[in-house]
């Protein structure tokens, strides 16, 4: 052992900004926790609604919102989506509320200057409600389901099997690469004991390592698939039998009622 290792360093840490490390870790952990959400013990009816119906009505609402010229209908869809807050879990509720307010504030900021020259208050209000409504529709779908349900739901929508496979594998490897990225950022945090003059270089190295890992994982995955007799075909998995229950009836009825507002 060398002398300097046997002596204690009288080191006084210096202040340096490493906020990007904790920000990146929080962002990735947020993404991973969203993708890792599992079926909870919640007995709320919204989680039991068939995914096929949820995807169908989400698409119907998003398309109808983009076509509507009625501020009443746009408001009704917003209120309907907000009503789901009473039926989702705490984590999902906080996420949906955050996203709703961000969507409203962002669209108001974008549209506000146009009020002076280009549009009327009615049209501006309609645009804001449309934007927030469509964001809410998609996020209610996302947060009232779990990621594996959405991918299995897409199977029922005649999406080619090979696209589903790519989609599925992408989700899995976002989690794998995300975990690697979190560990790498933690490793950089552990080594950031002083003033780091090469912050951007380190982040570029991290991106580079992630790219090289992606290549390595893709070769390994291909070899694993070949070893299990993969021949390029990916037959879509048969979905569960469609059982139309009370929750499905409730959901369809309420959605149709809201759609009828267009007729008013």
């Amino acid at each position, binding site marked *: *052992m*060398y002398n*300097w*290792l*046997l*002596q*204690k*360093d009288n*080191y006084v*840490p*210096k*202040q340096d900004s*490493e906020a990007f490390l904790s920000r990146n870790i929080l962002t990735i952990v947020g993404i991973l926790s969203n993708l*890792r959400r*599992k079926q909870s013990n919640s007995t709320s009816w919204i989680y039991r609604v068939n995914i096929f119906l949820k995807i169908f009505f989400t698409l119907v609402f998003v398309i109808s919102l983009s076509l509507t010229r009625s501020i009443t209908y746009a408001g009704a869809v917003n209120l309907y989506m907000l009503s789901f807050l009473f039926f989702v879990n705490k984590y999902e509720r906080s996420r949906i509320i955050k996203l709703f307010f961000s969507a409203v504030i962002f669209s108001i900021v974008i549209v506000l200057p146009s009020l002076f020259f280009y549009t009327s208050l009615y049209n501006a209000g309609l645009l804001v409600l449309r934007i927030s409504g469509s964001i809410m529709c998609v996020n209610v779908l996302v947060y009232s389901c779990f990621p594996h349900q959405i991918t299995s739901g897409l199977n029922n929508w005649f999406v080619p099997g090979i696209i589903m496979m790519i989609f599925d594998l992408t989700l899995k490897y976002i989690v794998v690469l995300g975990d*690697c990225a979190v*560990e*790498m950022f*933690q*490793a*950089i*945090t*552990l*080594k*950031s*004991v*002083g*003033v*780091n*003059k090469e912050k951007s270089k*380190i982040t570029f*190295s*991290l991106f580079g*390592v992630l790219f*090289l*890992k992606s290549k390595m994982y893709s070769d390994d995955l291909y070899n694993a698939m070949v070893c299990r007799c993969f021949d390029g075909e990916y037959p879509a998995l048969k979905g569960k039998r469609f059982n139309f229950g009370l929750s499905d009836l409730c959901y369809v009825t309420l959605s149709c009622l809201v759609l009828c507002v267009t007729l008013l």
Partner: protein
Amino acid sequence: MKEIINIKNVSCYYDDKIALSDISIKVFEGDAVAILGANGTGKSTLLKLIAALIMPLKGEYSFEGNVVNEQTIKDKLFLKSIHKKIGFLFQNVEHQLFCTSVHDEVAFGPRQLGLAEQDIETRVKDCLSMLEIEHLAERVPYHLSEGEKKKVALAAILALNPDILVLDEPFNGLDQKAMVFMVDFIKTFSKSGKTVICALHDIKGNCNAFNRVVAISTTNNIAFDGVFEDFNGVNY
């Protein structure tokens, strides 16, 4: 002996599962502690807790008498001083290597300490020679073998002159020669008065490197905490 780590009734969760349940451990200066446990018993979680990468949900963790929790680590200088004193080797060492040469990898830490360039070069040379990897100085860490990567990661940590070495399964993926080298290194490091904490699956081949054993049971609590001589195939 000076107490440096005090974990009191700590519980941690990982992915909605209990990772550690009501754990209490004290580590003193100069200890060479082997933390044993089956897969999923929370060894890595315990090491990350010690390195202040995760915070306890219940209980208290103190490092050198200072409480480490979500409030205290908001002081970035305090957190940096912990990271300077604790050298952590990940289970997957690839995640710790991000420079384009072994030399730069080892020099990364000392450069941040504000040392003179000559001192940095001395430290790099000494660390590479201690771990017998001087011939790898200009190689790209990404392309090295598992054992070589472990040595490079360890050299990079040693260059910061930590007081405590925390190693997560350091013998995984090593051949016999590298394993013997690692055991000798741990013995030398702890004999010089520094502290070593190692997470392991099994202690059989490495028994003379450690003076203390902490075994975590499958229910995520402590099954055994004592000197190595008293640990005689305790069930954990």
